[in-house]
């Protein structure tokens, strides 16, 4: 749709601008402020320059958390995207069962994040949880509060449980938009199931899948509540991801300077990824001629 040029439209955007400025820009400036100052308490601050930034860049703590974060995001993407596509391909295409599956699949998406944590915390316990109890009876040692591997598996499986449906829903929406004629043509050409997937379904899903991948990447990159409830970042620091570490630093230890520098760098990474996200999406929109 070609849009009319109208500078007065700014007035319609103004409320959003004011509100978001209040809830995003002002707090962000506070962070910038802390990141370049040091304090001896009693609200006396002095200029510290870029000291905190170089401190943070030198500290193993941030790099370790970043490393764990990247591994976590990589692992869950590698599982959730193929699994989501697979589930979407197997969903009923219409009628009662399609709605039935849609509603049940959306259920995990609507559960408060700390309850997701609680559910898996209970589910995985050896004494009272179905999963932990079953594994224990099968003779598998499983203790997510002590064992690093078990903690990681629990956190990853929990995220797969929580978010695979999102990928599946988006892929399903993409599949539904493929016109019948495509399938009909494939049938006439006697295309194999794989060929139909590779040359019809996958290209048509590309747009929504891009959104799914990037949404999952962003959201996993700022995951906090679920692993915090289940493992509390432990055992040791094994499941301390960026957000958990940041909250520990800022609110737990009240190290304002380093935490602020950490925040800004964290936010810059997210900004960079958002920009890639936006560019790719706008280009896809253009290609589809919306």
């Amino acid at each position, binding site marked *: *749709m070609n*849009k*009319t*040029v109208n500078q007065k*439209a700014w007035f*319609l*955007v103004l409320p*959003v*601008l004011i*509100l*978001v400025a*209040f809830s*995003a820009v002002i*707090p962000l400036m506070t*962070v910038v402020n802390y990141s370049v100052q040091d304090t001896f308490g009693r609200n006396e601050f002095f200029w510290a320059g870029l000291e905190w930034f170089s401190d943070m860049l030198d500290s193993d703590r941030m790099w370790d958390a970043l490393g764990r974060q990247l591994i976590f995001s990589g692992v869950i993407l590698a599982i959730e995207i193929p699994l989501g596509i697979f*589930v979407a*391909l*197997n969903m*009923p*295409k*219409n009628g009662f069962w399609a709605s039935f*599956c*849609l509603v*049940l*699949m*959306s259920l*995990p998406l*609507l559960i*408060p994040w700390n*309850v997701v944590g*609680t*559910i898996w915390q*209970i589910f995985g316990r050896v004494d*009272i949880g*179905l999963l932990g109890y079953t594994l224990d009876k099968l003779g598998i040692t499983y203790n997510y509060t002590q064992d690093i591997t078990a903690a990681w598996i629990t956190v990853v499986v929990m995220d797969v449980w929580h978010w695979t449906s999102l990928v599946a*829903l*988006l892929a*399903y*929406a*993409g599949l*539904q*938009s493929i016109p019948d004629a495509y*399938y009909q043509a*494939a049938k006439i050409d006697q295309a194999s199931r794989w060929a139909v997937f590779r040359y019809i379904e996958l290209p048509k899903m590309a747009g929504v899948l891009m*959104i799914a991948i990037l*949404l999952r990447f*962003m959201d996993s990159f*700022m995951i*906090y509540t679920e692993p915090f*409830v289940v493992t509390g970042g432990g055992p040791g620091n094994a499941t301390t991801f960026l*957000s958990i570490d940041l909250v520990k630093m*800022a*609110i737990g230890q009240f190290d304002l300077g380093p935490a602020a520098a950490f925040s800004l760098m*964290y*936010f810059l990474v997210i900004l960079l990824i*958002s920009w890639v*996200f*936006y560019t790719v*999406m706008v280009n896809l929109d253009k290609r589809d001629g*919306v």
Partner: protein
Amino acid sequence: MTDTTVQAPGAAPIPGEVTTDKRARRSRFRPKGSVVVMTLYLLFLLLPIYWLINMSLKTNAEILGSFSLYPRDLTLANYAKILTDPSWYMGYVNSLIYVVLNTVISLAVALPAAYAFSRYSFMGDKHLFFWLLTNRMAPPAVFALPFFQLYSSVGLFDTHIAVALAHCLFNVPLAVWILEGFMRGVPKEIDETAYLDGYSFPRFFIRIFTPLIASGIGVAAFFCFMFSWVELLLSRTLTSVDAKPIAATMTRTVSASGLDWGVLAAAGVLTIVPGALVIYFVRNYIAKGFALGRV
């Protein structure tokens, strides 16, 4: 606005119905899904939820004493405790108050903005749209401490409005994006006809435009409601007693006693209920909402 041809509003396709069409379309050519795969996947999804419900219906003695797949000694005492103890049920009330406040604020400011983005081009519109998106992507952990200080300094700490405003950080961009997606589906000719007929902007917007994108507003409201409802970090940081959300009540109980599993499970089940109730109405739009209006 004057050079395009004017078309009768009735001739234009009404958005929202396009999507329901898709559902009704039947095909003999589409590959069939596998019932086995879906059954296994749904089982995987529902088993942990079933376990939570199962635990919420047991007494603590039964939970810790014996292991059973279903409650032998069915009890509603856990639910009764939550629904009669103010320190528990006020958590739900608090959560609902700020979630509803947030949804109303988000929609009220997002509607005109989304209209501007979908209809007009103006200086800086693309940058502004992108900037809004970055707020949706901002990690709440980055904002927790500054929010705490900001709202403390203006005397809003531990009030519902503070949490509602804080959640606007990610809900307003989300609402703008979803609504813009729906509004793009409404042909511009409708606006132009209305203006020719002498409608003023506010009257047109409320009388004609809003009913046309009713499904979009519903979906945006649902997503604002949902993301505000599931969020814990900001709502916990910004409250202490008077506006403490149910999520925070739950985490504090875990750390304090760590024993009352039955009540904890019941509280968890009760937090799932609101989402489960409304999900049926938006089932066909969920993908669109999650894709920020881009499907």
